[in-house]
């Protein structure tokens, strides 16, 4: 084992780590906010929207993330340049960069998996609580905002750890579309130094640490959030 390359590449790994964390944060944030309506319409209807949401979650969960990522980056991305005038527009710098495509693909994936969980969570809130909220004169929107959504989110909180870890483990895929996060930097090191094991082991150790921090952090948070009483 020869680790003499490490000091030279450490700053680049720090940049890669920052990129990984950004990918993770935005994907979870956007994905979770999409998951809420996707879960909700499957419980409340209207029927066509419920069907659409159902198809969306089935397709997302039934195809590999790598294919979704490539479809969005190479497939959709290759359609943009054919639109006249787009190269001069303010959108072009965003459309040319690979990072937004990666965030979009990962967000859709989070939305698909977590949408399925939100569906169960909305359904799992006891009917009596919703009836009580309605009985004291809350409008449907108030019921959702004050009772239904908070109670559903409380139930999904334990699944959030898993979702974070799954998304973290998916982020290396972004390296295949030129987003050089931790794994991508590791590949660069492998190409430049002709070493096989050391960069891979270093990258694996970074992910191991990140997962450990996520698990411990969420355990701490979970202990602070009041547990729901099962009745």
């Amino acid at each position, binding site marked *: 084992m020869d680790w003499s390359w490490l000091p030279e590449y450490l700053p680049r790994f720090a940049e890669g780590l920052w990129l990984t964390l950004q990918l993770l944060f935005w994907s979870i944030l956007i994905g979770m906010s999409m998951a809420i309506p996707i879960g909700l319409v499957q419980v409340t209807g209207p029927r066509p929207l419920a069907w659409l949401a159902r198809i969306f979650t089935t397709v997302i969960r039934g195809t*590999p993330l790598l*294919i979704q990522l490539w*479809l969005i980056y190479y497939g959709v991305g*290759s359609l943009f340049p054919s639109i006249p005038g787009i190269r001069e527009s303010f959108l072009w710098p965003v459309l040319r960069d690979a990072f937004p495509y990666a965030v979009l693909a990962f967000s859709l994936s989070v939305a698909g998996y977590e949408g399925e969980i939100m569906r169960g969570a909305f359904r799992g809130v006891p009917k009596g609580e919703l009836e009580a909220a309605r009985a004291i004169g809350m409008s449907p929107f108030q019921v959702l905002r004050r009772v239904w959504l908070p109670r559903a989110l409380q139930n999904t909180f334990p699944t959030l750890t898993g979702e974070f870890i799954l998304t973290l483990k998916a982020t*290396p895929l972004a390296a295949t579309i030129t987003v050089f996060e931790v*794994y991508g930097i590791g590949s660069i090191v492998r190409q430049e130094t002709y070493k096989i*094991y050391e960069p891979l082991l270093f990258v694996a150790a970074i*992910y191991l640490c990140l997962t450990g921090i996520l698990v411990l952090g969420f355990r701490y948070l979970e202990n602070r959030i009041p547990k729901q009483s099962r009745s």
Partner: protein
Amino acid sequence: MEHALELLALSPPGWGGNLLRGLWSTFQIAAGAYALGLALGLFGAFGKIYGGPVLRGALTVYTTVIRAVPELVLILLLYYLGTDLLNMALTSMGFERMDISGLWAGIYVIGFVQGAYSTEVLRGAFQAVPFGQIEAARAIGMSAFKSHWRIILPAMIPFALPGLANLWLIATKETALLAVVGFSELALETKQAAGATKAYFMFYMAAGGLYLMLSLVSTGVFALIERRSRRGQPTQS
């Protein structure tokens, strides 16, 4: 639209045949890896339950590390490690070095990863078997092996099936990662077809459709198996 159909035609210059061949390799790799994963999982689960402190510790490291590190990193590490170890063993025994074919390498790396998840699923299923059944098997004088073979394993199946079905779906989707390493399966065939024809959108949609079909059929098959394995059990509410 006609253009798309021409590109997807089964015989060259169409790429449909390549995609279907890719789907077949994907299925083979997934099936082999799944079987290997189940074997490792069975060993791992019983090792975690009955093993001594050393074996249990080793298995805990195995399941924790595999489940915490991205599959892409694991696939590369396991691939290099596997070929190196194999060639070291071969040369020390006086044989010539050899290259592992993509199929077997894929089965081995994905199977090794699947084993960690299978271990946890099977261990959970074992713990869900009512203890009275195990006691009853011992009470009528079954040996340890016989009670496992005849009572515990069959009783584990209904508890394990939902998790195992999920693992199969993960295995089929995980094979796509092998494209990054350069093994020929559906994702790589698609990438090559898309690159050659520049019809990126169409080919990735087609590949997505094939994967989706595989998932939907698998889900249906597992639902049938699950219904059959639950015969005679009280319906759960």
